């Protein structure tokens, strides 16, 4: 009897240690290796001190100096189950060399959402990107703020200041919470800090990186606030000339809380958002694992595409992570180029970032190799 109890106790203890270590690991930021042109790293709490010491207090990487060129803000990891969003941001901050203007990169915009996963989605805790010599693991998080930071969800989320009503879970969705409020909930405070960052740093152009399921209507697209429409339409045309199909979507005026709508309305910035197609978010997907995240290949979506159930072309090649990151990087190039053409006195220039074709040719690992960043 005592032996059985001892075995049971050891088993429970082992399980507790194993899950505890897993939990602890999920609370530690994975290391990033900024390029040598990094000017400084500040914390988001610089723009709203209430975030200091919380899981939402995230790093803001600044490259370049105030020199009259544009200040550009890249937001990755608003939704941490959209890997192309934060992998593109990591790639940018690990490779960019600013020649004119300032680049602010927030790779884990909702850092709290990176510390857990959404229940029921079966997303893997990590996925690997092959490097020239080995692999580099990256974490996968959630669309929502960690309930440990904000709980319980209300039955109905009432957006401030519009009064728009959404489902309760969206109270933890950062991209339904802009512009945020000084006295708002935890997620609203993150949105408020980002809005303050845009105001205080006089950000000219915001590029918010996202992914969506292949059956979602706004996909392979650049969404733009009215002020950014000229810039976005130029970028879309340039992308088409290079063989990349992007749609141009207007920021809906009556759908509140989205970054492009609220940052455009509440600040002077040119607010844009990009979407790539990610099957690991899709409702039609089959087996969900790390391979699906990286390969973007799902047999159920191949079948779905054959009966016109997807909004993007999809076949046996899938839509791999390197394609999705490549589209974000290509859009980044073209948006900044278009902004610079339209505002030559505020033009920005940079080097070190691969083109879409270079990324497809060399693969992601070449640009994410920590050994290149001693």
């Amino acid at each position, binding site marked *: 009897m005592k032996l059985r109890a001892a075995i049971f106790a050891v088993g429970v203890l082992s399980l507790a240690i194993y899950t505890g270590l897993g939990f602890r690991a999920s609370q530690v930021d994975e290391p990033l290796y900024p390029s040598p042109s990094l000017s400084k790293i500040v914390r988001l709490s610089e723009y709203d001190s209430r975030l200091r010491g919380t899981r939402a207090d995230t790093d803001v990487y600044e490259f370049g100096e105030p020199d009259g060129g544009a200040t550009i803000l890249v937001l990755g990891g608003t939704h941490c189950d959209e890997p192309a969003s934060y992998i593109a941001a990591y790639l940018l901050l690990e490779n960019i060399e600013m020649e004119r203007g300032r680049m602010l990169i927030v790779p884990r915009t909702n850092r709290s959402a990176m510390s857990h996963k959404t229940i029921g989605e079966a997303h893997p805790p990590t996925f690997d990107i092959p490097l020239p010599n080995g692999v580099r693991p990256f974490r996968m998080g959630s669309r929502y703020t960690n309930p440990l930071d904000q709980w319980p969800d209300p039955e109905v989320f009432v957006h401030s200041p519009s009064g728009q009503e959404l489902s309760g879970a969206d109270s933890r969705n950062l991209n339904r919470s802009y512009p945020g409020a000084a006295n708002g909930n935890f997620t609203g405070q993150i949105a408020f800090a980002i809005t303050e960052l845009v105001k205080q740093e006089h950000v000219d152009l915001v590029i918010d990186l996202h992914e969506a399921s292949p059956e979602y209507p706004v996909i392979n697209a650049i969404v733009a606030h009215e002020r950014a429409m*000229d810039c976005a339409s130029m970028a879309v045309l340039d992308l088409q000339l290079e063989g990349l199909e992007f749609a*141009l979507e*207007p920021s809906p005026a*009556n759908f509140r809380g989205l970054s492009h709508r609220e940052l455009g309305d509440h600040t002077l910035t040119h607010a844009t958002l990009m979407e790539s197609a990610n099957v690991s978010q899709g409702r039609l997907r089959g087996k969900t694992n790390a391979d699906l995240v990286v390969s973007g290949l799902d047999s159920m979506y191949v079948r779905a595409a054959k009966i016109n159930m997807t909004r993007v072309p999809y076949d046996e090649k899938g839509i791999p992570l390197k394609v999705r990151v490549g589209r974000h990087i290509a859009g980044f190039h073209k948006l900044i180029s278009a902004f610079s053409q339209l505002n030559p006195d505020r033009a920005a220039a940079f080097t070190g970032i691969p083109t879409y074709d270079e990324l497809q040719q060399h693969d992601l690992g070449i640009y994410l190799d920590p050994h290149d960043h001693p």
Partner: protein
Amino acid sequence: MIRHWSLALLLFAASVQAADFKTPVLLTSGGQSADPQMIKTLLTRENIPFTYEPLATSAMLAGQGALIIVLGGSSKGLGAAKVSAEQETARITELLKSAAEQKITVLAVHVGGKNRRGALSDEFNKLGANMADEIVVVVGGDDDGLFKGIAESRKVPYSSAAKIADLGGILRAKFAPAQPTQE
């Protein structure tokens, strides 16, 4: 038989009058989608003088050489413009009727592919195509031959482009014919 078909094609081609496009251009929307933004960018790049007004009415036609209407409906766009589908239909009808009365050439353009087809869009698509002097469609928007059929029945020129970016050359050819070079 082949000879008959060739003759019919020649007769059709001869009966289709090439539209005469002049500048400046009034650019408007037919359904309040974001698609006219792309044409706006192309006109800017091609240095073709234009005025862009998504809600243009006949009052804006004075002094214009041509009208480009970019077809395709967007419920979000209609909502943002605070007009109903019925009001948009009435505006387009009034504008295109007035353009015809003033002999201002109308180019109907559809660039939105499959996303700008369907019940809402086709109301504007059919209206614009049935009153335009020429129709240009980007591939994907006319898989069922709606626009081509209207163009053939009305004997107006119809052309298609593989991509939106290719419309730049088409617009240049229509609105900014090459000037004689000085050699």
